[in-house]
Structure formats: structure tokens, C-alpha cells
């Protein structure tokens, strides 16, 4: 979508155009739920947060000035709603409330892991079905990440947000954002490698 398209869309939303609002629901509901599920301790709470976000959107759309994209603006409202909720609910992860004590050095792969990488993944030669299976593995690996890594991976690699936008949304430093993204990607890579090269010693 070009920024002109988005400006027109926002103008229609402000004018009360129902089709424009339906389009907003169709475009962002799923992505909002995915982000909320990543932030919240259970699916029911995630649905609540999404619903609260929609009401906040309805209240605020008239004042949206287009300084960010619509998507980033919606995600910012959603993360605010999740933080509000987290302040009252101990089941939420501590990082949502600004506890970033996890700021240790990057836990990179040691040489043994790099050795396992000897066997290239049989991705290119395979049919589409195989790629879909790998995608399922990747999706599960994402779901199993700690919530802070998962949220950064979703925002950066699935939603395509810029590093600075992610830092702003999650109230984390750039260094922290990089570490979380790196750890998340490494962990997904390791899971995929185990599935694709279950026995690297043999295949070498």
C-alpha cells in the first residue's frame, strides 16, 4: 500500500465510511490477535486486549495524524493496552513492565553448533509441500520462544517493522532489540536444523 492510499483510507475512516472501517477490521484483526497472543499469558486475555484496542482505535481515529503508519499506530495502542493489563495481572511477563534485567550478552552458537551447520538444508530442491512443512516447524518454533523474543521476531520479521519502531512499541533499547531478535532467530534456526538434519554427523 502506498502512503497516498493509506491517507485516503484514513480520511474515509475519519468521515465515518463503513467500508473503510470494515477494511480495517479485515486487514488488521488477525495481526492484532497474533501480537496480543504473543504479549498475553492466555488466549482469552489476548482477545480482551484486542477488543479494548478496537475501542481505543474508535475513540482515537479522529485524531490520528499519520506520523506513523496505520499498522504501527494500531500496534502501539495494542501494546499500551497490554501493558495496562499487565500492571494488574501477575501472569504477564515482567519485561512488559520494563524489567529488562535479561540484558546479558548474546548467547551465540559455539563452534559445535557451527559444525552441525555443515549439512546444507535440503530446501531448494524440494517441492512446495516440503517448504510448507518447514513453515509449520518455523511457526511452532516461534510459538515456543520466550514472549520477548517472540514479540520482537513477530514485529521485525513477520510484520516488517523497523528496529526503531519496535524499540518504541516495546519500550526497549536498540541493543536489547538486537539481542532478542538474534536469540529468537538462532533458536528458530536450531529447531529447523534439528528437523531438517536430524543426524548431522551421519550426513557429513
Amino acid at each position: 500500500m502506498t502512503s497516498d492510499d493509506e491517507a485516503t483510507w484514513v480520511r474515509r475512516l475519519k468521515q465515518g465510511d463503513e467500508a473503510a472501517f470494515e477494511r480495517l477490521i479485515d486487514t488488521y484483526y488477525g495481526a492484532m490477535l497474533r501480537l496480543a497472543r504473543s504479549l498475553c499469558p492466555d488466549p482469552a486475555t489476548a482477545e480482551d486486549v484486542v477488543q479494548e484496542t478496537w475501542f481505543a482505535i474508535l475513540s482515537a481515529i479522529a485524531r490520528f495524524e499519520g506520523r506513523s503508519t496505520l499498522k504501527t499506530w494500531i500496534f502501539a495502542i495494542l501494546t499500551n493496552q497490554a501493558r495496562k493489563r499487565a500492571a494488574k495481572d501477575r501472569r504477564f511477563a515482567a519485561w512488559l513492565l520494563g524489567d529488562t534485567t535479561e540484558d546479558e550478552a548474546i548467547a551465540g552458537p559455539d563452534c559445535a553448533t557451527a559444525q552441525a551447520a555443515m549439512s546444507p538444508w535440503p530446501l531448494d530442491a524440494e517441492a512446495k509441500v516440503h517448504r510448507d512443512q518447514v513453515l509449520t516447524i518455523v511457526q511452532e518454533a516461534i510459538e515456543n520462544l520466550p514472549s520477548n523474543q517472540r514479540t520482537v521476531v513477530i514485529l521485525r520479521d513477520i510484520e516488517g517493522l523497523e528496529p526503531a519502531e519496535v524499540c518504541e512499541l516495546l519500550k526497549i533499547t536498540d541493543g536489547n532489540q538486537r539481542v532478542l531478535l538474534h536469540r529468537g532467530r538462532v533458536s528458530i534456526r536450531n529447531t529447523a536444523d534439528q528437523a531438517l538434519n536430524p543426524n548431522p554427523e551421519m550426513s557429513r
Partner: protein
Amino acid sequence: MMTCKEATDQVTDYLDGRVPHGKRIGIWLHLMMCVRCRSYVNQMRQVVELIGDLSKQPLTTAPPDVRDALMAEFRRRKNAPADGPGHVEDGEDAEDAEDER
């Protein structure tokens, strides 16, 4: 020469194009020499691509009752524009969303 650990620790920044020039050349030289790290970096590149592919997969759509409720609320607010002040709290949150940028 850079060690395998040093090279692979920086793979995320490397793929993001966020490694400064000097270090970038160091990584590049290491990858020239080291087939294992080259393979590792390729796998990480594939991982990023695969994760990106998830964005093309169909997502949950709004359940019909949620959709109807949202549309009804949209219509209600359109017909009652003076409604704004009643929802100041939500509005403040949303304003934060933009002001903080």
C-alpha cells in the same frame, strides 16, 4: 582472523546491514575461509525468509459477532460525534501511541 563464534554472533546485525564497515570486511573474510560459518549464515538468511513467508499466510478473521459489534459501535459513534469526551482515557492511550514517536 575472526573466530567462528565472533563471526556467527554478529550474523543478525550482518544480515540487517548494521555491522560497521571494518567489522563487515572481517566477517566477509571469515566467511570466505570458513565453509561452516558460510553455511550457518545461509541458514540464518533462509530462516529470516521463512519467518517472512508467515506474513503471507492467512490469519484469523474477526468472528461474525465481534465484527457486527465493532461495526455497530462505529455507526453509533458516527451518529453521536459528541461522544468523544466520554472516552478520554482510551483516547489518551491512543494519543500516546503517536506522540511517543
